[in-house]
């Protein structure tokens, strides 16, 4: 006994095949490649392209090599990792909380990292560079733990997670401010990066931070199928055999790791984790298997361009990176919000 379905317009989702692939993946990758090239080629010192290449291959003037290899290249690579980390962290958090406004900044993860880092610098004025990344990561994890504990009641509901996150973010930001206000001058100078930026970052920082970022990005990829199931709702996920609490916990931990890695070198850069997953979703849809890597690519692209802008637009003065990402990101997010509503 079959009831014929009432005739309806066929509105199956169009699949353009290759054209779509190019748009969704080719375009962001091309933009990222361009960003990296520009980031290396441009700077306060004007270098002709030939000199840039010579500098990269270390076969021209030692000065060019210093500028391109020691100053610009590690900074661009760091921007790539920071952007990718923040983008993916945001994607994970938005998936776990089912809240489109979630990101590592709003939920207190970057505040946790910033607090730990500022505390470390305040207690030991000559705090070694190499320990900054693990300290920031530990801080993010502590922030995440606090958020989790506050929202636990037999399990963690997405709504409670989001609310606790906001509360913890305020708490930890206040504590960071307290540390800053009571710290002396040298600590404050060292903490200038907390406002957000890659000033003075080089190979040392990259060497320390990249394992955390790469580990986090890898772990995020492993989570994608679980995230897809989680998106169906807790009961459906449970029915499908997913360990719901375990997956959520893991996702938050990975998001914390990525946020901590980003904060340890770039301070509190807001907005990237909030905006990028929306753009990625617009291009790719909700499937996390594409959403996560695309968020990484788009996040990296945004931060590389933003950092370039931050150090070029008013050279030799550098604008804090967080301001640039906000200025680029806010109108875009507004447009997204309006077009969805």
């Amino acid at each position, binding site marked *: 006994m*079959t009831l014929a379905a009432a005739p309806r317009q066929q509105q*199956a989702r169009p699949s353009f095949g290759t054209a779509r692939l190019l748009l969704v993946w080719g375009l962001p990758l091309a933009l990222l490649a361009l960003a990296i090239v520009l980031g290396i080629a441009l700077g306060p010192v004007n270098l002709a392209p030939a000199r840039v290449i010579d500098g990269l291959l270390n076969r021209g003037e030692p000065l060019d090599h210093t500028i391109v290899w020691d100053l610009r290249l590690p900074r661009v690579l760091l921007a790539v990792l920071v952007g990718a980390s923040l983008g993916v962290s945001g994607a994970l958090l938005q998936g776990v909380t*089912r809240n489109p406004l979630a990101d590592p900044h709003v939920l207190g993860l970057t505040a946790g990292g910033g607090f730990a880092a500022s505390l470390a610098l305040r207690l030991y004025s000559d705090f070694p560079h190499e320990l900054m990344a693990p300290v920031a990561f530990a801080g993010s994890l502590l922030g995440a733990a606090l958020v989790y504990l506050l929202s636990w*009641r037999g399990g963690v509901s997405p709504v409670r997670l989001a609310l606790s996150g906001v509360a913890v973010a305020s708490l930890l930001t206040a504590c960071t401010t307290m540390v800053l206000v009571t710290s002396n001058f040298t600590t404050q100078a060292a903490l200038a990066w907390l406002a957000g930026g890659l000033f003075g970052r080089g190979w040392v920082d990259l060497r320390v931070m990249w394992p955390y970022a790469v580990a986090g990005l890898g772990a995020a990829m492993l989570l994608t199928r679980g995230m897809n199931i989680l998106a169906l*709702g807790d009961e459906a996920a449970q*029915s*499908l*055999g997913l360990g719901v609490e375990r997956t959520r916990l893991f996702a938050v931990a990975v998001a914390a790791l990525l946020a901590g890695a980003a904060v340890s070198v770039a301070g509190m850069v807001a907005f990237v984790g909030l905006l990028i997953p929306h753009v990625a979703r617009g291009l790719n849809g909700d499937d996390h298997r594409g959403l996560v890597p695309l968020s990484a690519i788009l996040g990296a692209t945004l931060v590389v361009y933003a950092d370039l802008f931050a150090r070029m637009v008013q050279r030799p003065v550098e604008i804090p990176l967080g301001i640039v990402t906000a200025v680029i990101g806010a109108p875009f997010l507004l447009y997204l919000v309006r077009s969805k509503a």
Partner: protein
Amino acid sequence: MRLEARKLTAGYGGDFCITDADVVIEERRVTGIIGPNGAGKSTLLRALARVIKPQRGVVLLDGEVLHQLPGRLVAKKLAFLGQPLEGVPDLTIEELAYRGRFPHQTMLRRDAAADREAVDWAIGAMNLESMRGRPLKQLSHGEMRRAWTALALAQQPDILLLDEPTAFLDMAHQFELLDLLSKLTDHGVTVVVSMHDLWLTAIYCQRVIAMSGGRIVAAGPTDEVLTVELIREVFGVEVALQPHPSVAGRHIALPVSRRREAAPAEPVPNPATRPSPH
């Protein structure tokens, strides 16, 4: 695939919704759980489906404690569908059905042919062939419910548990869905549904579990359980039972008003009822 509960006490957040329930689910039949609101139907269903943990007592699947079995293993045998159905408006019906293959897929092994076969079967069984590629946000209530049911079917479960599957559906779709579920039992699937509608329960369910106030009041073949006395006890209403005009061995329950209209000449003749004290 024997599913049973023994001395089951369960609820949400410290409250016990159901107490001391003993239940055996008959294989390859449609079992309906009935009762008024708050009786504990949803809780019982969810406890049986491994969606909530028992606070006391056990749920056993083939003799093993359900909650101690690995989730993925259970998901290949049990599928649960509750409501609301949320969260992924942009997914197409086909993509949603594919999510149902999750328990069968591991990191390393993935049997694409088996997946495709299961999804095709599930979509076909729910009569959604013509709209496989349509995103969920464009579906009506009924189509949405069928799409999610296809998800559950794609799991290829032995036991399917559905919470109020006919809610918000118009009559035609209610019939259609229950017909499909009945057909599933012919394929060897055990179906457990919580039902609001006595009429449909009487026709489509071969077994009935009646609940009231968190306890199981009666369980067994439909005709034995659905009596006027039981309905009065569980629902607090007076009904008259009539044999179904076309389905042999089935009765339908007709409500009897407690208040008499402008005094009829004689009481409504009905051998099955007795005047009830209020």
